[in-house]
């Protein structure tokens, strides 16, 4: 019974963390048709922003929830202006240019920040489930992930910005002729996506050692989740995270985490053979 609860928590955690590291990428892809190959480095930047802020004396929670998203969000605005904007509508070129950005960020971080920066401790301690122990931070990640998805849903569904953003994505020409400044909408959407990546980076900072190439450990999973989910940002992230998180975590329990990751990849490739446009290419098409 206790064991079942532990498994359940671990599966929920796998789903939540997948959703968390993918949602920023999914928003940028779903709303703007841009695949940000530097997503992993946006996570890295969020992580570094968090640990550097903490070492400067900031409160951990402030660093995670304010410093990291703002830093990466503002950085995202600059990136959108300099690299993404000249390439709108040309997906392949965007992939290549953002990949270049990814390498550049790894390089600059290796040069300027290095591989030996001290991290931050995992907060919230742990609690007992029968004979097992579970970290409080695990539950915290699950809760934050759910809240983030809810907040994004509310932002897109209930605010004026959400309405304008969705209209712009559906038909930019029409939105522009109705007086919407589409460039500003793209920039703001990119800000939101980047800020969410920064938040995810801040949240993983206590879990792993943040080094310049830490992003490469996460992007494979994030890409698979976003592509498996398809073009509808929220429903896609949620459904793909649920599917892949469950598969990989159960295989990880039966074998090892690495084999779980392989199972995730195989599940994704098999899924795309059946649903080439991802889950939301066929289901939940009309959701957010």
């Amino acid at each position: 019974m206790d064991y079942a609860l532990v498994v359940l928590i671990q599966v929920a955690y796998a789903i939540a963390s997948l959703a968390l590291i993918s949602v920023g990428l999914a928003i940028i892809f779903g709303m703007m048709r841009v695949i940000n190959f530097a997503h992993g480095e946006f996570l890295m930047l969020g992580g570094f922003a968090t640990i550097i802020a903490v070492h400067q004396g900031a409160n951990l929670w402030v660093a995670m929830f304010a410093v990291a998203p703002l830093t990466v969000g503002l950085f995202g605005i600059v990136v959108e202006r300099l690299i993404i904007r000249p390439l709108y509508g040309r997906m392949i070129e965007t992939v290549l240019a953002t990949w270049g950005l990814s390498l550049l960020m790894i390089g600059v971080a290796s040069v300027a920040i290095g591989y030996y920066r001290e991290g931050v401790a995992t907060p919230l301690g742990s609690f007992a489930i029968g004979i097992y122990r579970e970290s409080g931070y695990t539950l915290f990640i699950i809760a934050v992930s759910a809240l983030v998805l809810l907040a994004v849903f509310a932002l897109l569904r209930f605010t004026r910005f959400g309405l304008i953003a969705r209209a712009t994505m559906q038909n930019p020409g029409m939105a522009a002729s109705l007086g919407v400044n589409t460039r500003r909408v793209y920039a703001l959407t990119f800000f939101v996506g980047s800020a969410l990546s920064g938040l995810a980076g801040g949240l993983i900072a206590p879990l792993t050692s943040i080094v310049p190439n830490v992003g490469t450990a996460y992007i494979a999973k994030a890409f698979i989740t976003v592509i498996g989910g398809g073009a509808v940002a929220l429903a896609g992230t949620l459904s793909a995270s649920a599917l892949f998180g469950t598969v990989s975590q159960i295989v990880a329990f039966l074998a090892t985490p690495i084999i779980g990751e392989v199972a995730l990849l195989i599940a994704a490739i098999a899924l795309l053979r059946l649903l080439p446009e991802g889950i939301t290419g066929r289901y939940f098409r009309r959701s957010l």
Partner: protein
Amino acid sequence: MSATATRLGLAAMVVAALFFLFALPRFAELYVLNDITVYAAMATLALSLALVWGFGGILSLGQSVFFGIGGYAYAVAAINMGESTVPVLLGVALPMAAAALLGYFMFYGRVSDVYLAVITLTVSLIFYHVMVATSGGLTGGQIKIGSAALGGYNGIPGLPVVNLPGDPAAQLDFEGMYYFAVGTLFLVYFGVRWLLTTRFGRVAVAIRENERRAELLGYDARLYKLGVYVVGAGIAGLAGVLYANWGGFISPVVFNIFFTAQVIVWVMVGGLGTLVGPMVAAVALQYVVTELGAAATSEIKASATILGVRFDARDFLDSNVVLGVVFIVFTLFVPKGVAPYVQEKLAPWFARRRADGRAAP
């Protein structure tokens, strides 16, 4: 490109091949030949993506995965067999089989360009994680295939070098390896050139130009794309075999994102839709990257404290920085690459010469 230019290009490549195979070894130092050997392996890898992306229109971001599979297949087989003929063949066949399997899912699933790009890259990244974990994390112990331990992050050292077919004792020396690698490179180059003149090659290019039109003419685009992808994987595998032979060593580094990114950069800088461009770019950029090395391991050159945070600058010209900048600059400003740019500049010159030739007599 005009027929004259094509003939001139072919003649230039034949001359280059004769020079590298017969003239250079007579006066070059052994260490130069050894360097050229690894450049030849890299140029072969560049050729594979030049074919798959430049002529097949398939953006395989993880092309080096086949390079790695080829290298590992050779390594494991050579250690187990103590002889190299079958391992070399395996180093070509296994990547082709892997490409056929992966390609079946992608091309027959008709996933879009960008999805395909991301999937191929992801496969490479997962291979990296798996190979790194073969020293323990994967199953809880060292993984061995026959007598070859895969060795995790450290890779497999001390590989047996290629020998003359049927005679395991006749291993190639440095000079022999040079001939093997450079010979393979030019053989592959002329082979790909020939392939592109065949019916198969022409249909593949037609599909790149306009997939729907080619399909309406009755060609099965899925099958042709799969064909190009599999041939490209075989070439990449062969390049991996050369690479493993050159250093007597293979490690998961060949699967990591940096390695696979540089293959894309070679083709992009050299020029999509050309073969010589990517080969030359591979050699040139490989040279630059080798000279720069990795900043992370170098000494601290300067320190600065900004907003109370200490930043230590090591060698500023980290190879990642250089590759990243080249990547961005070429995508934004020279999207066609260098070779097509040069061709465009040369085309009027050829046209003028032809006009002069006609006017003169």
